[in-house]
């Protein structure tokens, strides 16, 4: 993750003339939270219907006091690399301000070292894609200082799929088809009227 991330930062700075190159970099964060979720590997979950329970806790193998700055935890739903392919609007960028990997918020909670869990019904506007869950720990200035995720560093294991709603309704389908048919039929009506006018003009 480190080398490609550094390269991305360099690219971003060359291509962006606006001076906002300050901000937290993902590569600077420590993986101090252990995050797990109740989905099974490659499970398909339906948006708007099914649920996922996320638990997170501080990884005790790190020295005590590492988490003294953590004030809140934001848990997010993130795109796996396969769902980012050929979709620049979901690009992973090291500068977290510009990063588009994790746009969907699951929950935000004040930080406690253990016993954190949340059951989330997958919202109806979540698009169909492959996901993992990531939690960010933020300090009092609302900056990210640590993270944890349900997948590995390459974002390839323990992913799950969400199947989105179509947004279609029977009423919409019927209205669409009826109006379309009506347009074509009224055109035929126009031609018929025009022919009759022609006949009348000829008779004059």
């Amino acid at each position: 993750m480190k080398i490609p991330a550094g390269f991305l930062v360099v690219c971003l700075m060359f291509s962006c003339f606006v001076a906002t190159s300050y901000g937290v970099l993902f590569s600077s964060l420590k993986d101090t939270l252990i995050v797990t979720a109740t989905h099974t590997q490659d499970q398909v979950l339906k948006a708007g219907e099914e649920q996922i329970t996320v638990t997170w806790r501080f990884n005790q193998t790190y020295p005590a006091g590492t988490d003294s700055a953590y004030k809140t935890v934001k848990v997010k739903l993130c795109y796996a690399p396969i769902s980012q392919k050929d979709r620049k609007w979901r690009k992973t960028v090291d500068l977290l301000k510009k990063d588009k990997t994790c746009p969907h918020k699951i929950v935000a909670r004040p930080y406690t070292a253990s016993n954190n869990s949340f059951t989330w019904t997958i919202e109806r506007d979540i698009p169909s894609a492959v996901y993992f869950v990531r939690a960010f720990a933020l300090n009092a200035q609302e900056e990210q200082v640590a993270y944890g995720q349900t997948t590995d560093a390459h974002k390839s294991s323990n992913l799950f799929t969400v199947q989105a709603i179509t947004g279609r309704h029977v009423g919409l389908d019927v209205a669409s088809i009826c109006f379309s048919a009506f347009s074509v039929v009224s055109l035929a009506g126009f031609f018929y009227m025009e022919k009759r006018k022609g006949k009348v003009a000829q008779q004059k």
Partner: protein
Amino acid sequence: MGEVASNPEKNDRKFALPVDSEHKATEFRLFSVATPHMRAFHLSWISFFACFVSTFAAPPLIPIIRDNLNLTATDIGNAGIAAVSGAVFARVAMGTACDLFGPRLASSSLILLTAPAVFLSAIANSPAAFLMVRFFTGFSLATFVSTQFWMSSMFSPTVVGTANGLSGGWGNLGGGATQLIMPLVFSLIHSSIGSTKFTAWRIAFFIPALFQTLSAYAIFFLGQDMPDGNYVRLEKSGEKHKDNFSQVFYHAITNYRGWILALTYGYCFGVELTIDNIIAQYFYDRFDVNLHTAGIIAASFGLANLFSRPGGGMLSDFVARRFGMRGRLWTLWVVQMVGGLLCLLLGKIGSLSGSVAVMLVFSVFVQAACGLTFGVVPFVSRRSLGVISGMTGGGGNVGAVLTQVIFFRGSRYSTEEGISLMGVMIMCCTLVIMLIYFPQWGGLFCGPRKGVTEEDYYLSEWSAAEKEQGFHKMSMKFSENSRRERGRKGAAAPVQSDPPTIV
């Protein structure tokens, strides 16, 4: 309904505006809706506006649609190209239909046939379906041709540039207005009716679809093909001869000026369509503005059409008063060249405010060039006006397809490189205007040939047999009325001449 009743003594017919011998209006009064001239103007720009709104209804809602239909960047790019490629042939077909059936029937038919594509956008469920609906909706942009044809039939050469420019420009406005209308309709449906995002965008598409359908009805019931009536009635009563398709088509495709204008129009209007498709994401990606801001910037490009394209048309008419057709050609060449230069510059500018400023000036020049082009088109042919208009219009869409495929697809060029290279291509392709020559009026560098008249040029489109039957009468009248294209200096040149020789 809308028809002016015919009298046995045609000269007694009263029109609200002053007219010439073909009964085309010699004045343009914007705030009038008088039958038939000004009413035709308002019907044509409103219906063309509706078609533009429908064709570009998807781009502002792409962030929602791409999540609903699981689109990739390639899918989106292809759909954008599809949206403008359908109209390439549709415009030529429309030109032919106008010549043969009249603009009223031709445009209302096309609009009603493409309305289903907009209605069915609401039930698209995959990238392939999305591509198909954008492709078929894009056919409606062929109403541009019927708009220009109708204006050229209703308005005299002195004001035809103005009429064409205003109707074309205010129609093109739809491409900008839609970037504001669709997000607004979407958020109204999403917040007040409470539909989820993936349903709200679908319902939103009914608005442009209904608007389009209603405009077709208005054209059919309130419109009229020519100042003297509709084709159907004029043909049956013998006042207008029903022309022969293959002859009309032949005279259009053998007129090299039509091909040159098709190419140059591809590099003003085609560029405009390309920018409509890519500019919002350019500002979003390069300058990191949010989606709303990017949409407003994109809209302002299209909204400049309110005055810039009409301005081009008016400038064409204004210059023609003193310098005739040569003035029209020179102004077109200069304005389009400057447009190309500004496009080159746009890609090079690195600051947000500089980019927006250059983009706005660029929009004025490129759209004025479109208006100036259609100040020349009505004079290229009288018999095949529709097909020539269609070829030029179709050429515009070819330009849009070409520039998007060459510069804005895949990752060979960054968007800013693509924009600059497009500017270079504009300048190169504009050079061919130097090759346009009207024997009776001249070209960029050469004056008119001595002794050649307007009748020689326009009557050469009719064979001797056709002339014996009197089919060429409209071209005779048009030749007389177009004499002003000589400019002030040429007014003293010969008027009538012997058997015509050239094209």
